[in-house]
């Protein structure tokens, strides 16, 4: 029996990209995930997270390398892997809109080969756990995003899998729904399962995961506990500005300032939130304000880096770890 729940050895997946070109969606990825661990796979769009998840789900073959779940190879021992792995997809996909919540679960219970007597007990327990018992006869097409996501969780746990893979589970869910979802995921780990989760939301990974890996361009560029990743930003400080009208030429000038590392811009309530990851030893505030003097700066503050800052620093950096 393998010591690890999930093992990836030099896993690669190459896609044809047309005109004779190829794209390495996953590139020599190696990971070891312990049993009972909650592991986060982070990265921007196109980093290779979903391709990795699909290989583990056994719906995509790797081009080279190996992936094993509980010691079973995802290519050679497909049926064993499928029986022991639960897959929880994000968004609307993966559920039958015309069926009720209960009928969705009954259908998947038959696909997973769960005997009927077990089905009734298990479905009742799971609907209760995800808070959908009262809506069990309602068609899924009438469900909110959050309800669908909770049903996804029930579906993924239906056959009592030892390993659960969550692909961006909180995508498009409101903050209350996302909090409930995180509680359900936490409960899944408490039950003794191993969870691999991909997410865009750093606070979610920080809150839930024992360890995370960051991917960029198909490669793993960092791995460790959220705390250890945050430590990569030791000696840095984040200068945060709420600003109106900042453009690419302004950002280019800011990037050239001594002491400024990476930067990120996000739209927040009609203005832009500009975060500059700066060297703690160099106070760049005056220089930054001078570069932006032609713009309306609403607020300036300094703060300690979060996991999100560490992530941005990693994925926007040029060198692979």
């Amino acid at each position, binding site marked *: 029996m393998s010591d690890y729940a999930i093992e990836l050895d030099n896993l690669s997946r190459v896609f044809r990209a047309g005109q004779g070109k190829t794209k390495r969606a996953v590139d020599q990825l190696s990971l070891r995930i312990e049993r009972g661990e909650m592991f986060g796979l982070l990265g921007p769009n196109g980093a290779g997270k979903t391709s990795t998840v699909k290989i583990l*789900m056994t719906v995509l073959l790797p081009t080279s390398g190996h992936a094993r779940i509980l010691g079973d190879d995802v290519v050679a021992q497909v049926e064993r892997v499928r029986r022991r792995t639960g897959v929880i997809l994000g968004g609307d996909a*993966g*559920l039958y809109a015309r069926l009720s919540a209960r009928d969705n679960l*009954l259908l998947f219970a*038959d*696909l997973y080969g769960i*005997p009927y007597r077990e089905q009734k007990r298990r479905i009742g327990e799971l609907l209760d756990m995800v808070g959908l018992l009262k809506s069990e006869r309602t068609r899924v097409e009438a469900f909110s995003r959050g309800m669908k996501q909770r049903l996804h969780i029930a579906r993924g746990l239906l*056959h009592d*899998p*030892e390993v659960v893979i969550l692909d961006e589970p909180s995508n498009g869910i409101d903050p209350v729904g996302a909090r409930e979802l995180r509680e359900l995921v936490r409960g899944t780990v408490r039950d003794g399962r191993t969870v691999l989760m991909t997410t865009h939301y750093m606070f979610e990974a920080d809150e839930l995961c024992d360890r995370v890996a960051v991917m960029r361009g198909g490669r793993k560029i960092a791995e460790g506990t959220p705390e250890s990743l945050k430590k990569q930003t030791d000696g840095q400080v984040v200068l945060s500005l709420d600003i109106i009208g900042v453009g690419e030429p302004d950002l280019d000038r800011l990037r050239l300032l001594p002491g400024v590392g990476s930067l990120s811009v996000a739209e927040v309530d009609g203005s832009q939130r500009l975060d500059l990851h700066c060297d703690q030893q160099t106070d760049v505030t005056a220089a930054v304000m001078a570069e932006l003097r032609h713009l309306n700066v609403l607020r300036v503050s300094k703060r300690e880096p979060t996991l999100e800052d560490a992530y941005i620093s990693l994925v926007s950096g040029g060198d692979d770890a």
Partner: protein
Amino acid sequence: MVGTLQRNVGASVTLRLFFAAGWRSHMALFRWMRPSAFFPTVIGVPTVQLIWFVYLGHYVGTHPVAYYAVGNALHACAIAGLFAPAMSIQGERFSGTLTAVLATPARRSVMFLGRVVPAVLIGFLTSVVMLALGVVVADVELPWARLPQLVGAVLVTTASCCAFGLLIGAIGLRTREAILIANLTSYLMLLVCGVNVPLESLPDWLQVVGRLMPMTHGIQAAREVLAGTTGAGGLMLLEFLKALVYLGIALVVLRVLEQNSRRHAVLDEM
């Protein structure tokens, strides 16, 4: 403790995968299972088709109108019989469930054959209703003594049509055009399967195509039963054998293309 849920591959689980999951999948994927869609689609379309050809046949005058009524009544099974299995993969893709379904350990042969059963039942019932309509509008005379043979002919025709539909559905693992192929097949059947035009009046090569298509021998068998002549049994057996061959090919194509789609990452392509 996790991972201890009882799972088995016994007969009851296989039967549930075949019947219960097959029926539920049909309910999940096809809007026509709602009465508001069932009557216009499954009954309405073949009704108009049957009446249209009966009156066209009456105008042309080459055959008794019952000829057209019987041919179109049996062709009516194609609405559910051909299109439902043909859409069993593409429908999953449209509803975003294909990846989740193919990530389960369910035996594909049992799962997809189970999806054919509701199509056979609905297709069979449609043809029975259309034969009754034929009695009303085209004076089709039902031989009560030979009713079991007629039921057999309708059933075997529907089964053959569904098996061919499953083959189209299997091709749907690699193409988005399953519904187009099913439409083309349905129209081709009108021409080459003896629905409205006797096979013998077609060019030789089209006769060959017709004999290879589902339905041809089943329709011929139904006409033999109605005419009280012999030979219906052999024709039904031939149609049944064709159904088995289509099913066999469909399951092989499903297996090959599922493996292929894992290799080429085309499962989710819309």
